[in-house]
């Protein structure tokens, strides 16, 4: 029985959970004397986690825990990105959390457990571990959204998130139970082998697949399962939105890959048809409704919905090229989102939330550097060359063209043009409108430097863009 518990490949997960428990205890005794200790310990944990994760690079796919945990190239890349983005996000949000009295050791423990949940999802090769990882992530996020208990909007957002998240989990579980009924197994590899010869007229198989796609749709937030996204983005504290909008998107990518590709690649024709509808609706509704928003965070929520539509385009093409384009898209989108919410946090200060678009009027007169940063982020989100956002959109659309889905590609490009309007409106507001009130930036130097670096990278990373794409490609190719 010794060979089945080769736990070495799960070192980052084990380390992160042990540290989460330790930070919980340490914070209890040192909170009054050394309040920032749990922040620094969390950052140190994530740095060490990244170091441990790097050690797993380039190895052959290994499964452990009786085939419930899989370690492959995709899981390593996604996990590293999750930890890195969480680390950067925590730097941006420290001042915001301190100013609003949300600073507690438990905030960081919850973030670490959410990271653990995402890593478990990324490495899941069994329905049980996938579901448990998903619930670890969701439960931490529900709590983080509500952590500012005295804010009515945050509590309402948490309630909506909780109820819809529970419905989504129910859908996913029902789909999984139907799949279990069809194949007699919860192990993704066994399921994949069992459905090999099945036809699409098998009603049970199709019903199970539909429920699983609906569950995934809820978790990704694609139309028509998107209702929770705008309310959460608007209602939750910005620091939590920053977290929700970045790392979990990568975990969602891993979940899609594990379920649809690892599990149901042989019925790809069926799920890619379903995803086409979801993708077109998301791109259309996300981009068009975002135009009408006056709240910056709500606008970014609709932008997130449309981005999820674009992300699905790569999955729809149902080949490794497309999957790696989707992974690339997700990494770039999460990185851009990190900068976008980082800049919103930077503009906010004690007692003031810079969350309306009108708060950014004439920003160029006072803070030309940050106005330029926001403009860069908006260009990247809109997908304008020469920013990385352009290459992200290009690669998913290229994947579609490769499989001769020209009409879908044309729709995607047209909707991207519509979407460019509301991103550019922010730029116009910053550069051509008259400023209303004076703004002071109170955020610490580390966050200011890092967010500038983050935004500049959207442009400066261009010479190495091929390296990142190759990394995504090799990650997808080395899947077990």
């Amino acid at each position, binding site marked *: *029985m010794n060979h089945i*518990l080769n736990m070495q490949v799960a070192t980052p997960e084990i380390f992160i*959970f042990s540290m989460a*428990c330790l930070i*919980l205890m340490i914070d209890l005794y040192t909170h009054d004397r050394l309040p920032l200790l749990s922040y620094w310990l969390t950052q140190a944990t994530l740095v060490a986690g990244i170091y441990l994760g790097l050690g797993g690079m380039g190895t052959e796919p290994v499964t452990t*825990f*009786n085939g*419930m*945990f899989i370690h492959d190239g995709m899981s390593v890349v996604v996990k590293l990105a999750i930890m890195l983005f969480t680390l950067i996000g925590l730097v941006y949000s420290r001042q915001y959390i301190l100013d609003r009295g949300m600073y*507690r050791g*438990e905030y960081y*423990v*919850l973030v670490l*457990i959410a990271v*653990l949940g995402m890593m*478990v999802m990324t490495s899941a090769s*069994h329905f*049980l*571990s996938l579901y*448990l*990882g998903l*619930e*670890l992530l969701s*439960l*931490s996020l*529900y*709590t983080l959204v*509500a*952590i500012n*208990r005295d804010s009515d909007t945050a509590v309402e957002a948490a309630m909506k998130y909780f109820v819809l998240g529970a419905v989504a989990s129910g859908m996913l579980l029902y789909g999984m139970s139907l799949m279990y*009924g*069809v194949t007699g197994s919860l192990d993704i590899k066994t399921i994949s082998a069992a459905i090999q010869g099945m036809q699409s007229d098998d*009603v*049970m198989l199709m*019903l199970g697949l539909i429920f699983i796609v609906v569950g995934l749709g809820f978790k990704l937030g694609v139309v028509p399962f998107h209702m929770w996204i705008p309310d959460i983005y608007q209602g939750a504290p910005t620091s939590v939105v920053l977290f929700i909008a970045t790392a979990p998107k990568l975990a969602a990518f891993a979940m899609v890959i594990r379920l649809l590709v690892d599990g149901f690649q042989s019925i790809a024709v069926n799920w890619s048809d379903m995803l086409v509808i979801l993708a077109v609706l998301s791109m259309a509704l996300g981009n068009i409704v975002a135009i009408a928003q006056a709240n910056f965070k709500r606008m970014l929520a609709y932008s997130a919905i449309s981005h999820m539509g674009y992300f699905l385009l790569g999955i729809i093409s149902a080949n490794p090229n497309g999957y790696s384009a989707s992974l690339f898209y997700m990494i770039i989108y999460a990185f851009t989102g990190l900068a976008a919410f980082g800049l919103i946090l930077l503009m906010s200060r004690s007692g003031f939330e810079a969350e309306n678009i009108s708060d950014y009027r004439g920003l160029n007169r006072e803070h030309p550097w940050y106005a330029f940063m926001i403009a860069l982020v908006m260009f990247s989100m809109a997908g304008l060359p020469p920013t990385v956002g352009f290459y992200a959109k290009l690669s998913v659309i290229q994947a579609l063209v490769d499989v001769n889905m020209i009409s879908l590609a044309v729709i995607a490009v047209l909707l991207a043009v519509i979407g460019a309007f509301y991103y550019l409106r922010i730029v116009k507001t910053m550069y051509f409108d008259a400023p209303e009130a004076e703004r002071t930036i109170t955020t610490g130097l580390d966050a200011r430097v890092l967010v500038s670096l983050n935004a500049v990278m959207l442009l400066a990373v261009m010479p190495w863009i091929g390296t990142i794409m190759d990394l995504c490609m090799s990650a997808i190719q080395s899947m077990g």
Partner: protein
Amino acid sequence: MTFEQLAFYFFASVAILAAAMVVTVRNPVRAALFLILTFFAVACIWMMLEAEFLAIVLILVYVGAVMVLFLFVVMMLDIDFDQLREGFAETLPIGATVAVLVLLQLVIVLTSGPFELEQVAAPVPAAADYGNTHQLGLLIYTYYVYPFELAAVMLVLAMIAAIVLTLRDRTGTRSQKPHEQTQVKRKDRVRLVKMNAEKKN
């Protein structure tokens, strides 16, 4: 009809009827009690499937703990159930349509073949010395150790979340501090005052 079939139909119909009552009775306390009955009937069906450990756990955990807590909550909170029912007539058409559609789809699927009786062989009765609990224990701590540990992490997370969301440090509350009480010295409480003896009248 064998006794086993008879017992199955009895427990199954009790479960369905009680479940229907849960959503139709007006009084929430009664709804909770009917839910207990549903759990109990389902536990009996599990018992017939030789899953005796799960059946007992269902009764101990759900009936014994979860539902009792639920009853407490229902009785303690003053929920205006008439207010909750407002708008029922407006949402009924949409809700009913969706429910009927889902039901129809499920019926089509469930009658399509894989769930027919002849597809599923009757389980072979286990030997007399076979212990369901023993097998479950073996599996959980060996084969399923990873999900088991993850479930434990989730319980820790639930505790942290519940405490984060509800604990408030309030000042000015009157609470006992045994630590300070036992360390009290005489000089903290008793003050000796030197007084001159008074003259007798």
